[in-house]
């Protein structure tokens, strides 16, 4: 990649001139969000331009896609993601993700961890998350199989590619009723599946899913923590060299910038 690596914590300055920088990706901050800076940095490293979005602001400021990052929005009060769903910014995201009240294409939305929980509470994705079956907080590198590379966020993965990104949560057990699970499986909407053992009791080993249109994707593990050599999971090239998560960001950024696969 020709993009110059920015300093850690610096994501406000414009990146190196590139046609990809025209892709503006919003990153929403709720009270209690933790990983917004990491997500913004992942957008930078993917070549796009991160735009900070605020939970209380209905405007998406013209962004081309939105990331709902991880953390503990509103302290996980009531249920994880339950209060964040009612934030003003979510009204706009829900409308644009479903391409309602607009003639534009449906807004690509990625929900990571708590962001995934918010997407299920907002009914953009089916099912819900409950506490891990062993009740412990997990923090480890996790292998996943990419089972759907037709979504806005996974188009640059190869079919059934095995990737490794960090997993860190307490309420990560994906549950849905049997009819919903059957529908997700039949329609190929399971995007990421845990491999090498189920870490939390999720039904059908599901780690991430998409909506029917493929523009909304949610997953429990954290791609934004595996975007930079030296800070990712271990891989065959060395310790902490894993950057598999970056592909989610480059997938959406490339397609928004009009690049071909």
């Amino acid at each position, binding site marked *: 990649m020709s993009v110059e690596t920015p300093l850690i914590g610096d994501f406000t300055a414009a990146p190196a001139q590139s046609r990809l920088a025209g892709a503006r990706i919003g990153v929403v901050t709720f009270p209690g969000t933790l990983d917004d800076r990491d997500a913004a940095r992942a957008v930078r490293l993917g070549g796009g331009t991160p735009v900070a979005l605020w939970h209380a602001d209905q405007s998406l400021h013209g962004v081309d896609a939105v990331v709902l990052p991880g953390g503990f929005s509103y302290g996980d009060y*009531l249920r994880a993601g339950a209060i964040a769903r009612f934030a003003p910014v979510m009204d706009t995201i829900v409308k644009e993700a479903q391409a309602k009240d607009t003639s534009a294409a449906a807004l690509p939305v990625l929900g990571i961890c708590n962001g995934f929980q918010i997407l299920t509470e907002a009914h953009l994705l089916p099912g819900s998350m409950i*506490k891990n079956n*062993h*009740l412990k907080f997990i923090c480890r590198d996790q292998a996943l199989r990419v089972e759907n590379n037709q979504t806005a966020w996974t188009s640059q993965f190869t079919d059934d590619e095995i990737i490794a990104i960090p997993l860190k949560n307490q309420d990560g057990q994906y*549950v849905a*009723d049997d009819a919903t699970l059957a529908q997700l499986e039949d329609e190929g909407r399971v995007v990421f599946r845990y491999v090498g053992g189920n870490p939390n*009791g999720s039904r059908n080993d599901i780690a991430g899913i998409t909506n029917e249109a493929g523009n909304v994707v949610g997953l429990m593990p954290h791609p934004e923590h595996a975007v930079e050599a030296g800070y990712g999971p271990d891989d065959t090239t060395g310790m902490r060299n894993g950057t598999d998560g970056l592909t989610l960001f480059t997938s959406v950024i490339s397609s928004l910038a009009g690049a071909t696969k």
Partner: protein
Amino acid sequence: MPRIIVEVMPKPEILDPQGKAIVNALPHLGFTEFSGVRQGKRFELTVDGEVTEEILQQARKAAAEMLSNPVIEDVVAVRVDDEGDAA
């Protein structure tokens, strides 16, 4: 001040990890007679004035749309808790 009590429980078919942890811990304190525990939530909604049928209806709506997530939980009770009720 009258209150409306809303009770929410995890759906029967959903594994309740917290309840399972509690039932496993009970015998350690000598409570050996309980073979199962399920943990739910109780909300107390305070009303300034009388609880009308309309307000109760609003409470039912709030219970269904916000206080519970129908994917994983059931609303098992929405009832008025009058003052003096020792519940």
